[in-house]
């Protein structure tokens, strides 16, 4: 186990025909230590959500094909029988989704939905369950939880529903909380409150968090380490300070340069030229090469491996590897 809670090794996810598959996640490896908060950033279509979904085995198979290893406390989750997987889902690893508006069942009360996960994972006593639901709802900041138990989801605002989702996710003190863009559908003020809540949950339960986002600001708020994905691959994996202070990969550099700041004058925002390759396009060489300002010849033919550039700072780029060597 070597202090790793979640250890993803060589994870690949493919869709489409076997002969000509579309690889949306390509040989992804990273780890989350107990209690650590790791951010997974990338653009739409970079494979970050699919990576997260495959941890809970939520990628539909077929049509998807998942290969590699996902070790959770040393056990590979991928070959696990469904019944054992169900025992892990929601108890050891839980997930908060992007759409708080539709993540709650419209015909069940809030109380029933929070209680459901408690009942599933072993709380058989009705009264204790009820007490715990009230405690949880209070914890996530639902005002007057006792009277809100019998409310239906449509009576809640988006921010409140996301709080309920978080209450469901933390109900069984999970060791790992996966949050897939938990704040994307919310407006900024509510975003800040939900992030604050997640930090609080983390302090309280010592859960590890895997936060998926395309928003570097959100990641910076919560995480200690960032994994940057581009076109299904990891391009950089570094501590948050190290990454923001000295991004190695040209893609990450471009990303950080295109964040608007408060102090610059109104100059045009930086943008990375070109656009993300469509999934399933040629996988030869580095997929960022067409947009890369420092591309070398070998970038067209050989895929750069993820290698160390300084302590705990991994990046996959031939140009910086050459720079280091020089």
């Amino acid at each position, binding site marked *: 186990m070597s202090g790793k809670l979640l250890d993803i090794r060589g994870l690949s996810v493919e869709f489409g025909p076997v002969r000509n598959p579309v690889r949306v996640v390509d040989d992804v490896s990273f780890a989350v230590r107990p209690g650590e908060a790791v951010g997974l950033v990338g653009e739409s279509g970079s494979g970050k959500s699919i990576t997260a979904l495959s941890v809970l085995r939520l990628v539909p198979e077929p049509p998807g094909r998942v290969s590699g290893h996902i070790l959770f406390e040393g056990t590979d989750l991928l070959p696990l029988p469904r019944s054992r997987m169900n025992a892990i889902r929601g108890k050891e690893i839980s997930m908060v989704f992007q759409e708080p508006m539709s993540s709650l*069942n419209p015909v069940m009360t809030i109380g029933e939905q929070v209680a459901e996960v408690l009942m599933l994972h072993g709380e058989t006593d009705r009264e204790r369950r009820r007490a715990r639901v009230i405690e949880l709802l209070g914890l996530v900041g639902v005002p007057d939880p006792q009277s809100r138990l019998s409310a239906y989801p449509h009576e809640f605002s988006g921010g409140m529903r996301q709080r309920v989702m978080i209450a469901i996710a933390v109900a069984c003190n999970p060791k790992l909380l996966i949050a897939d863009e938990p704040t994307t559908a919310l407006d900024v003020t509510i975003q800040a409150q939900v992030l604050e809540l997640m930090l*609080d949950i983390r302090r309280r339960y010592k859960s590890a968090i895997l936060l998926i986002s395309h928003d570097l600001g959100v990641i910076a708020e919560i995480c200690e380490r960032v994994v940057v994905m581009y076109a299904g691959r990891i391009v950089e994996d570094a501590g948050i300070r190290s990454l923001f202070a000295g991004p190695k990969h040209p893609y990450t550099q471009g990303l950080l340069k295109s964040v608007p700041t408060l102090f610059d004058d109104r100059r045009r925002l930086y943008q990375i030229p070109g656009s993300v390759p469509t999934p399933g396009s040629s996988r030869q060489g580095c997929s960022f090469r067409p947009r890369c300002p420092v591309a070398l010849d070998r970038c067209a033919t050989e895929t750069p491996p993820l290698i160390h550039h300084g302590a705990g700072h991994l990046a996959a780029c031939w140009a910086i590897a050459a720079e280091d060597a020089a």
Partner: protein
Amino acid sequence: MSDVNAPADIDRLGAMVAREPIAPEPRFRDLVVRVIFARASTSIAAIVVVIFFVIAAGATWIAPYDPLEQSFIAVNQLPSWQHWIGTDQFGRDVLSRLIYGSQNSLVFGALSPLFAAIIGGILGVSAGFFGGVTDRIVRRIIDMLMAFPELLLAILIAAALGGSFWNVIIVLTVAFTPGFARVARASTLAVKQEPYVEAAVAAGVRTPVIIFRHVVPNILAPIVVLMTLWSASAIRVEATLAFLGLGTQPPHPSWGNIIRDGLENMFATSWPILAGGFAITVVVLAISILGDSVRDALDPEVNQ
């Protein structure tokens, strides 16, 4: 929990920003009230249906005569104070036969859509939820059954099995099952995509529980609407079968065979045909209107 606990502020903000156009889920009681009092036609239809239920349930006490009791001295009578809508060729009281016949209609109108909804629901939900081979098999069965007009299918089965009570139920159930299966399948496909189903999977909920707690309650509305609409059809088809001699067998009264008996005797007295036809028309119309209103009430597009 530092500044997160400012519930009043949060709620106000939430209410300001997240004023989303989602139609509120109607509570059941409000729904019933809204359905019945929405339009005058619906209110009347509801009254008719209630009267129909009362008559069917209380037939034993309401009917002035035994519907099977024959009388050779009082055949083919026109309406009178003794026999409000006269007697038939065996001297049986037509009103009493109509009243007892309503039991038949009620039982078939309620049971066959219910059975069809259960069987069709099981087929449709499993096809929609599991997909793949299950879906393909169920879809073939549905298509096959749908290729027959429901009446033709009903006649076919009734002719093969004979016209006993349970056979008629089976006939109607089989005829109505594909429609329910289709609706259930389509609704399940839609609900399966909902994030709350995925969230339930992520929480470790087992598949059967997901189906019964998260999928089925969310597809009930269209099924219930279909049941109301089709109980009218069931009454109509049962009457047709009885008329053709394939449904309820004489001497037991059914609105269909009251008309059939009357037909043979039309020139002596036309009252049994008129009365039977009137009863079928009124009840089928009332149930259809009620069904339409239920559908409208559950459809956010119509319900402004």
